[in-house]
């Protein structure tokens, strides 16, 4: 009997280790350790919505600066700022909102001052066939339409609440998701009739979703600041990357992904 309990307990352990959440901070810590002396490696902590643009910009930056390697850690901005506060080895931080950048600034983690590099607004995403016939933001207030939003606690949810207010409607979502990716997932899989996501998400999703724009979206704008961090071992390279994103090439890539100018 005892052996059963022991094995059951080990099963429990096994399950808890696989049950961990969705945080993703793989491989960013050893980026700086293995490089040869003349090589420089920087780690960029960037909001999840910047993933495709920043991956492209990272390669371009490496090409323009031989010997420099750029490694990324993409996650929710509040996760990233928490990791930086706990001493994660980050050289650059790009946040999806000013609130989380302000947290880093308040803890003296930011070198100099952050630069705004992009803006993002909300758009309605529906499954390709638009089964509920959503044409405007007002349609989201219809109780028969299954709407998924971000929870008010996360940046995209705060933006959604702002849009509701601007449009003078009240949405009763069937789910308040943790991140904009989760909202998009529920729309792509057809579980939800509509969701409020960023313009860039609709663009990146291609024909998996249909985007419905609405005029009130311009009333709530998320600003993306970027900053080099005081913890960086290569402050010059860190600053150069931040400037690169803020520069012409960076702005062109961000604009192509659907981001607005800062």
């Amino acid at each position, binding site marked *: *009997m*005892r*052996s*059963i*309990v022991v*094995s*059951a*307990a080990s*099963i*429990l352990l*096994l*399950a*808890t280790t*696989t*049950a961990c*959440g*969705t945080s993703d901070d793989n491989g960013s810590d050893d980026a700086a350790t293995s490089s040869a002396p003349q090589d420089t490696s920087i780690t960029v902590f960037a909001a999840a919505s910047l993933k495709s643009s920043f991956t492209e910009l990272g390669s371009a930056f490496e090409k323009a600066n031989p010997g420099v390697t750029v490694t990324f850690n993409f996650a*929710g901005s*509040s996760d990233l700022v*928490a990791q930086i506060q706990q001493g994660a080895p980050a050289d650059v931080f790009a946040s999806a909102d000013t609130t989380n950048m302000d947290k880093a600034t308040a803890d003296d983690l930011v070198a100099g001052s952050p630069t705004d590099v992009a803006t993002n607004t909300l758009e309605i995403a529906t499954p390709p066939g638009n089964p509920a016939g959503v044409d405007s933001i007002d349609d989201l207030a219809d109780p028969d339409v*299954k709407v*998924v939003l971000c*929870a008010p*606690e*996360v940046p995209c949810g705060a933006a959604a609440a702002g849009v509701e207010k601007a449009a003078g409607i009240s949405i009763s*979502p*069937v*789910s*308040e*998701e*943790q991140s904009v990716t*989760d909202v998009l*997932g*529920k729309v792509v*899989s*057809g*579980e*939800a009739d509509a969701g409020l996501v960023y313009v860039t998400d609709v663009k990146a999703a291609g024909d998996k979703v249909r985007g419905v724009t609405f005029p009130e979206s311009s009333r709530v704008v998320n600003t993306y600041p970027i900053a080099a961090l005081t913890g960086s071992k290569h402050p010059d390279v860190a600053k150069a990357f931040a400037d690169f994103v803020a520069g012409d090439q960076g702005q062109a890539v961000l604009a192509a992904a659907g981001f607005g100018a800062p």
Partner: protein
Amino acid sequence: MASARTSGLPRWVLVPAAAGALFIVLPLVALASRVQWGSFWSLVTSDSSREALLLSLRTSGTATVLCVVLGVPMALVLARTSFRGQALIRSLVLLPLVLPPVVGGIALLYTFGRQGLLGETIDVLGLQIAFSTTAVVIAQTFVSLPFLVVSLEGTLRTAGQRYEVVASTLGARPTTVLRRVTLPLVLPGLAAGAVLSFARALGEFGATITFAGSLEGVTRTLPLEIYLQRETDPDAAVALSLVLVVVAVLVIGLVRGRSNAL
């Protein structure tokens, strides 16, 4: 169990053993040290916390009942019969145990979701599973069922078939043997398995957030609430985490208490 038996064990084994124990205990101590005891009670009894805890208890309880209803026959078949492909079936049954829960969530979505394998059938029956409490129970049952099957199958094998054979030679029909001999004999193992299933269901996160969504009072269980609170109110997240730790300790105590009683 508590008597110190060091005979035959090399002393050095104690060092890694102690390090391992510390590795498990230290994070829990760190968590407890972060709790704001002054506001602990108000944090864990806030409306959203209470809703989440009650929902968690309700859904985990229901999932445990489902695990018993489905898992006991499964364990009986696996332990008392032999057929071709049994090893394969056993491996498949154990799969949710080692599968990342988020993978389970995606699989459930494509089974019970609106566009899923059974989506139309469910629609015809007039049921709504997406974004409902039912979805939470399904996710929890999916991940915790193997716990009950594994621990009960082990108990059944350990208990052996002597008494069952005797009972049937004395003229008892199979159902009578099952009801009067087998089940009473393995009741402690069944209880331990049920408690473990309950604990796993209570901790379920990945499959729930992927499959059921997150809405207060409907689908936002305690782990989801903790994950969300972390965004804005880390103190509340820590306080609620401690509640789950306490529940886990109680569960282990229950299982151990049962086993020692044997």
